[in-house]
């Protein structure tokens, strides 16, 4: 075999701490290496052309590129090798950047390590075999999980693109967090006025099937052919007949039910439609507060319902949706700010979250758009906004910036002045983060036009005194302690991945971080992809972002799906398991451990043998390490390929000696 080795400088990224010339020189003495060279940027156009030229001129059978992580440019170079006429799997990468040059300062040790990694890659490549993809057809339906603004945007774009869309929403209405907002920054336009029509579009779009009050239970399958088990949670109202007339709500005697839509600052009826613009506009019963469910007596709603839609015996319904791609747009929730004991940990009614304040500002909210402090329903005159509650705070395990709080706090300060002209707003902030079109101008308006008093510093404590909330903090610019007697304190609470996002990630087999945000495929180059083919991300599920960014990502995810579905057939990853029939004893232990059901029993000349269904196999290799006789080998990660790497590494010691 003739192998070419290309050692990348990556400018000074690698060459700064690895002697790449020496690595290339060392590669020349490695078995099977017929060509070795250092190159400034292997991934650049001339760099790739250099690889192609060398393969053609030297008649190489395979190439090793020693550069960055294969997770970054593995596929780039596989295409390069393919353009040179080789099978793309006749390629290996040695990661001498992320795993060497960027993490070690000792150039001698780094160079030695880089040589070892190249030796291992060369040894593996010598065992590689050409692999060929198979085609399989795809189901051009897409599921979008989460009906917030990102999910709505993705759904509409996909549906407009001609795809059948299944939108799954956990609550009884779509709209998400945006539906709860009164106004949006920096335009201060009415949130429901811009979102409402889009929600209606969803309801009316012939290509969109909406499952509200539904959650994903299980996900099977693979890109192009997913089967998703959706649990439609019982609402105790037959939504096929319910017209959303609201008669039940009017008569429901249980009026003190929790109102999650209004962030628990108001109450609602046990049977309710969360808000007038809800989509679908259907009623549902909150079991926990319904008198019928608690005592068995009542049943008024059933009596008053003109369409006899009430069904107290309704059960959760399981449906299976077959789709080819999935967009996860599950949004965010506020972190549990009760960890802040110094702000009362929820003990003071007049310390509220910004989202609660938002409901208070909303004309359709529980206060009818009048700002009233919860304790005595009086209009507050002095309002203190505390930013970064659960943002940029390592002490509560929230080192990241939620990003949009600076903007909505400014918006709320402006709206406060509009609502109560004689009010005074104080904003405690760490830094103003307002990068965006008209954003910084907006925060300046809050200060300059609306007179909000911005104090740069953190609040050390909040406590009640004589009907006021005393806010004690520091003004770091003035270098002085400050104390404000406030009527109402509003906390800008940081965002985290929506409740249940970790469980959903596990079902989707995508990664998530410790805050419940889903991991994108690459932080820069694959912001909407995940590492699971056919699963995409949109909106705050991937990380905190404002409305325009969420909408943009919703569209981006839709574009990804449309691009995926633009083909009728997909190419399967040929890195699948393969059975050596001679070695297989038919014990089927591989099938027991296969998480995908990709191995079935077959009979060959009267003997039971394992057979891999290539389009279902995901290439994990659990079967390979389960099979004792080495009969089922994951292609491109065969025992011999891995052993070649181990042996090359362990023998390098003796060779040098």
């Amino acid at each position: 075999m003739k192998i070419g080795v290309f050692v990348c400088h990556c400018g000074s990224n690698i060459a700064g701490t690895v002697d790449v010339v020496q690595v290339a020189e060392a590669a020349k003495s490695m078995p099977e290496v017929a060509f070795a060279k250092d190159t400034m940027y292997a991934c650049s156009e001339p760099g790739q052309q250099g690889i192609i030229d060398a393969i053609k001129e030297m008649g190489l059978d395979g190439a090793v590129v020693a550069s960055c992580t294969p997770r970054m440019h593995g596929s780039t170079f596989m295409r390069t090798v393919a353009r040179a006429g080789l099978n793309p799997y006749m390629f290996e990468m040695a990661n001498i950047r992320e795993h060497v040059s960027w993490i070690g300062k000792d150039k001698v040790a780094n160079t030695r390590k880089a040589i070892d990694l190249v030796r291992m890659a060369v040894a593996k490549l010598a065992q590689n075999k050409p692999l060929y993809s198979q085609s399989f057809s795809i189901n051009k339906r897409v599921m979008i999980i989460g009906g917030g603004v990102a999910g709505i945007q993705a759904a509409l774009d996909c549906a407009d693109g001609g795809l059948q869309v299944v939108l799954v929403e956990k609550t009884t209405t779509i709209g998400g967090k945006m539906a709860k907002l009164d106004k949006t920054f920096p335009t201060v336009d009415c949130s429901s006025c811009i979102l409402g029509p889009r929600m209606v579009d969803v309801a009316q779009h012939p290509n969109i099937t909406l499952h509200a009050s539904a959650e994903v239970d299980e996900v099977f399958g693979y890109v192009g052919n997913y089967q998703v088990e959706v649990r439609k949670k019982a609402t105790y109202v037959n939504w096929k007949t319910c017209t959303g007339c609201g008669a039940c709500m009017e008569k429901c005697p249980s009026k003190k039910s929790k109102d999650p839509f209004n962030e628990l600052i108001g109450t609602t009826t046990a049977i309710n439609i969360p808000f007038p613009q809800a989509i679908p506009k259907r009623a549902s019963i909150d079991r926990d507060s319904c008198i019928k469910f608690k005592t068995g007596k009542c049943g008024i709603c059933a009596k008053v319902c003109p369409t006899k839609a009430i069904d107290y015996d309704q059960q959760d319904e399981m449906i299976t949706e077959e789709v080819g791609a999935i967009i996860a747009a599950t949004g965010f929730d506020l972190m549990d700010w009760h960890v802040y004991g110094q702000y009362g940990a929820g003990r003071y009614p007049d310390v509220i979250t910004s989202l609660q304040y938002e409901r208070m500002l909303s004309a359709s909210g529980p206060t009818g758009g009048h700002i009233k402090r919860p304790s005595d329903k009086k209009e507050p005159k002095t309002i203190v906004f505390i930013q970064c509650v659960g943002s940029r705070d390592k002490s509560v395990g929230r080192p990241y910036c939620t990003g949009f709080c600076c903007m909505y706090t400014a918006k709320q300060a402006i709206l406060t002045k509009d609502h109560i002209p004689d009010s005074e707003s104080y904003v405690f902030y760490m830094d103003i983060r307002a990068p965006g079109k008209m954003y910084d101008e907006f925060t300046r308006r809050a200060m300059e036009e609306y007179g909000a008093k911005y104090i740069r510093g953190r609040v050390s404590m909040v406590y009640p005194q004589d009907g006021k909330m005393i806010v004690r903090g520091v003004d770091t610019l003035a270098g002085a302690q400050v104390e404000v007697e406030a009527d109402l304190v509003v906390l800008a609470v940081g965002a985290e991945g929506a409740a249940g996002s970790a469980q959903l990630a596990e079902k989707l087999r995508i990664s998530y971080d410790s805050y419940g945000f889903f991991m994108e495929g690459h932080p820069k180059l694959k912001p909407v992809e995940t590492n699971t083919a056919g699963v995409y991300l949109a909106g705050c599920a991937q990380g905190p972002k404002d409305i325009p960014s969420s909408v943009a990502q919703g569209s981006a995810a839709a574009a990804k799906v449309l691009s995926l579905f633009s083909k009728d057939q997909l190419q399967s990853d040929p890195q699948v398991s393969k059975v050596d029939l001679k070695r297989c004893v038919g014990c089927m232990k591989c099938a027991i451990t296969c998480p995908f059901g990709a191995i079935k029993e077959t009979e060959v000349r009267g003997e039971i043998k394992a057979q891999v269904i290539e389009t279902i196999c995901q290439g994990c290799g659990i079967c390979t390490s389960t099979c004792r006789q080495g009969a089922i080998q994951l292609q491109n990660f065969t025992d011999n390929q891995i052993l070649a790497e181990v042996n090359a590494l362990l023998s390098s010691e003796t060779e040098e000696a």
Partner: protein
Amino acid sequence: MSLQDELKAQIVKRLPELDVVIGWGQGYDSLHRTPLFITSEADVDKLVFDPLCVHNLSTYLTRYGSAKRIGVVVKGCDSRSVVELLQEKLIHRDKVMVFGLPCEGVADLGKVKRALAAKDLDMGRVRAASFADGDLVVTVSGQEIRLPMAEVQADKCGRCRYHNAVIHDEFAGQPITEAAPDTYADVAAFEEQTLEERMEFWREQMERCVRCYACRNACPLCVCRDYCIGQSREPNWVSQRDGLEEKFFFQMIHATHLAGRCTECGECERACPVDIPLLLLKRKLGKEILELFDYRAGTDPDAKPPLLNFKVQEDTINERGW
């Protein structure tokens, strides 16, 4: 009726349903029994059962095509291999007829050899052997030597929980009620040595290995047989070199491939022509698997073996924080 006669009668009765019944017969000398393949009633007369019937005959079960109906005579320990094979679907219940026995323990010919060597006698020259009053009585070089069974019994019998065949279609004799605890004291005692001493021990033992693979081929659960990865090039785990690393690594293959499956019948060690104590490696795995998963292989044909199973939250695996 003696146990042996009862067994013979059972085999005679069931033989018409079967292609062959595997039992024990007289070997080349009075101390050796040898596997006996019974296909006719005349063969049944050659059947023997006594504490010299050391072989685990279940090792033959996977060597017949699936069309044959095989009878096999098993002691308690041997029967666990049958259970394991059934559990792994390597044999089928309707193709195997199990003649179960109660067993008070078998002799360890290595111990017999040592006991005789201590008296300057060679086991290879024993002219006659019989059992009387719990002793193995042998005639060698003109002397009659009484060896108490307690002294020459196989170690596995001293810690046996399963004296009676755990699975059977026919059972001869009376079940034995007592069962000894197994505390894995042998493993613990070995591990009192330093790590260096332990490796030196294996170094010395493996030096003698001739790579005959009797350990593997005697093992009822080594079902890869002709396609063992210890000898293949595709995959190529072990080179043809016969250094200690290669020899020892083969034992690593054997041991890890038996993890959670090994019933500790000890055939690997018994079969070894150069007396390498191979069971110790498997006992160690058996001990850890028992502690981790509360699992003993070969006791439940319907169990899901621990290494083909998992719990999302493991009760006993204390994952190490960093």
